[in-house]
């Protein structure tokens, strides 16, 4: 109950602020934009019967769109009738001649706007609005509710709006509520339960486009860049939220859940032979070792394997390297200047902030990173 009330208030205030402007001369103006991903930004609103309405339509998408309001329950009929127009479609603005079309607006080119004025129906009901350009009408629609009380049905179960919009507005308005967070995790993401360690190859912030996000036990995660073959950053408190990226048709990164506690700014963490030389790096893939990815890349054609695990106490990460065919000295570099990390290495000698390993030592070594922010900053922990 509390939850529903909160939702209702949020939705109400949302319309009040952004979409619903009642002017002095009693014409109700409603702003609707066509946005990318074949959708309307506003997927439902409510008006009273016999009200003077002005809908301002703004096409912010890169495609053309039209706008039709149909009789209740007639959206799919009209969408299919528009499909059947075939080559006559463009000339008719994809608007089929039908008594079920109440009002319509011709095709609006990209980045242009227009408006539509009418008197709302006297009969209460759910009046669909839709773009009927072929392919659009099945997903690009919304609903005008005509009612005297102005109460909208529960958005989660509202079959008059696209399925993808039946939750999200509520989440984005009210994303701080713990109840909503539960909602996110309840939604099935995959046909299996994700158990750490596991990974996504996905677009991440502050990384190249061939990024890999890895979830580790102990509530730790890291980003490894398969373009530059290097560990980029690590965070604690959650993994990634891919909701936006999985909708498709948009430039977005996976959203990091939690707080970044370490960033590595080393361009070439492993150097073979002469450390001053810019090495030739190539990503070769990864294997799963007890479900942990062990990355494989080459530095000047020498195979390097890197496996990252959490410290047992969860206060940092351990980077384990294997360079089985090393013939020269190997140099490992990391953020030694960072005061918040204490490095403990299994082999090698520190020389001017770089770890120098003999070919033999480089065959297998590890770098244990104790991160003070995880030790002392308990506020970010659960």
């Amino acid at each position, binding site marked *: 109950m509390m939850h529903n009330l909160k939702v209702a208030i949020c939705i109400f205030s949302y319309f009040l602020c952004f979409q619903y402007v009642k002017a002095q001369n009693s014409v109700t103006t409603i702003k609707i934009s066509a946005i990318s991903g074949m959708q309307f930004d506003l997927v439902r609103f409510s008006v009273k019967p016999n009200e003077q309405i002005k809908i301002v339509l703004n096409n912010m998408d890169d495609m053309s769109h039209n706008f039709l309001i149909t009789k209740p329950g007639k959206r799919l009929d009209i969408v299919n009738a528009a499909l059947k127009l075939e080559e006559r*479609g463009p000339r008719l603005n994809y608007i089929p001649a039908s008594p079920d079309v109440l009002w319509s607006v011709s095709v609006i080119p990209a980045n242009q706007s227009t408006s539509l004025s009418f008197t709302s129906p006297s009969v209460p009901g759910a009046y669909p609005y839709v773009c009927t350009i072929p392919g659009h009408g099945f997903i*690009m629609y919304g609903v005008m509710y005509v009612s005297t009380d102005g109460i909208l049905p529960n958005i989660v179960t509202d079959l008059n709006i696209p399925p993808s919009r039946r939750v999200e507005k509520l989440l984005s308005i009210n994303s701080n509520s713990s109840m909503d967070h539960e909602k996110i995790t309840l939604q099935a993401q995959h046909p299996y339960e994700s158990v750490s360690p596991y990974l996504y190859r*996905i677009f991440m912030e502050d990384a190249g486009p061939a990024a890999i996000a890895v979830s580790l036990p102990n509530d730790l995660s890291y980003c490894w860049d398969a373009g530059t073959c290097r560990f980029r950053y690590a965070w604690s408190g959650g993994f990634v939220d891919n909701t936006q990226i999985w909708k498709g048709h948009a430039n977005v990164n996976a959203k990091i859940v939690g707080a970044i506690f370490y960033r590595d700014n080393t361009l070439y963490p492993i150097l073979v032979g002469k450390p001053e030389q810019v090495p030739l790096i190539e990503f070769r893939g990864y294997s799963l070792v007890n479900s942990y990815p062990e990355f494989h890349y080459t530095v000047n054609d020498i195979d390097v394997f890197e496996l990252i695990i959490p410290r047992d106490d969860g206060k940092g990460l351990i980077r384990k390297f294997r360079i089985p065919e090393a013939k020269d000295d190997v140099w490992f570099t990391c953020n030694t200047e960072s005061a918040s990390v204490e490095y403990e290495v299994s082999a090698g000698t520190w020389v001017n902030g770089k770890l120098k390993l003999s070919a033999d030592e480089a065959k297998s070594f590890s770098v244990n990173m104790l991160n003070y922010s995880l030790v002392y900053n308990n506020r970010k922990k659960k």
Partner: protein
Amino acid sequence: MTIHLKLTQVFFACFLLFSSNSPANTDPINKAYSVQTIQTPPGLISETGGLAFLPDGRLVACFIRGEIMIYTPKTNQWKLFATGLHEPLGIQVISNSEFLVMQRPELTRIKDTDGDGLADVYEKVTDDFGISGNYHEFNYGPVKDSKGNQFIALNTASQGGSVKPEIRGALNNLGRDMTPGIYEMYSVVPFRGWVMKLVPGTRKLQPYASGFRSPNGLGFDLEGNLFVTDNQSDWVETSTLYHVREGKFYGHPASLVWNKDWKGGKPVLSPLDELDKMRTKAAVLFPQGIMANSPSQPLCDVTEGKFGPFAGQLFVGEMNRARIIRVMLEKVDGELQGACIPFIDGHGLRRGNNRLAFAPDGSLWVGQIAFGWGGDQGIQRIVFNGDLPNDIHTMKLTKNGFDLTFTQAIEKATALNPENYKFRHYYYKYQRKPKNQGADTSVQQDIQEVSVTGIKISADRKKVSLKMAALKAGYVYELKLGNITNTKAEPLTNKLICYTLNKLVP
């Protein structure tokens, strides 16, 4: 699950609507083919990026959220094979436990080496192409030729999105022009808008052909010709099927910045006639809004009759409507050209038809996707029931008209009635998109009806020879058939067919 249910409801609503619009007709296509829906496991968002069959008869599919799953048709069981991939859009089978997968950052070989049924090795095969981070830089393929060479296609970037601060590959801003109001895809990292070739045993891609916009589908025919579809919009006035050959340019200029002989400057600002002279025309045009708006994978009917009478022809998925298209090609004056016709239209098929694969039993499996566009999700299967469909088998250009060959003998009186052949011709301009024109606006030029001046029917009543008042190269000939029936008075399954006439019979 709830999303699934709702989609099913929507889909049922569509299906009922389609049926109610043609109530009196017997449904000839349902006699020959039926569409079955494959149940996908709970929790799977079955936006399908790839489908293929294993030597042991199981199906492998990859999905947009990164899963690879294997389906056993005998038991209807799904089993997880791999996870975590970046928008995989193509899969090729190497063995029962090893696959090649085209994902956003690379072509990857994925193997189960310990026999537990789960992948444990993800080996990069090639990542020798740029990624700007633009959402539209999808990668398609791989398809393999008879010599083992692999071919992939790289989508251009969309003006609807930008590039990431960190990219992979060299940046070349000549690959885009940001004139306000002109909607245009771009190529600012290597080989966007190209079909690339990978020789076995190498990791370096060879540029193969350029000029593609959104080439969401590659396939070979029985003779080993490579075909690639492209999606209508800027520079691609209507969607296409290209016969792709090495070194050729297919029309979208952005990719030309990566041509080693490119003289400099922004390709999209090059004189139109120069670009037009360079380009190779599509073997088949899919008229926008009529035949297809977003064609996907072309798949050759290799079933030798198991899937019906269309062996050797191509099937092409369509995203925007519940349709699979059939393509028939012929060589005219040395070049392949031909016709497209709906194959399955409605009849329980969903929209979003993205990937096709033939099962060992000869049924055609279809994977659906939307990913923010107008589509759907799921996997369906089209089964040939053994009854001969009543359809056009081939449309061929003759010296003065077209020959239509039907799958069945047709009724003579209907076949000889000129009223039953409504021809129009039109063409599509090769042009830069006009300012402020919507991305999916497509204009037919010089639309004219063309009359049939003579009709002859063969002795076996399977072939009709049509004499046309005139034939012009460079036009689409769209034919709408009237009430032509077979000898049992059953109507044709599909009455719309479009022939792309690039070349006249010499």
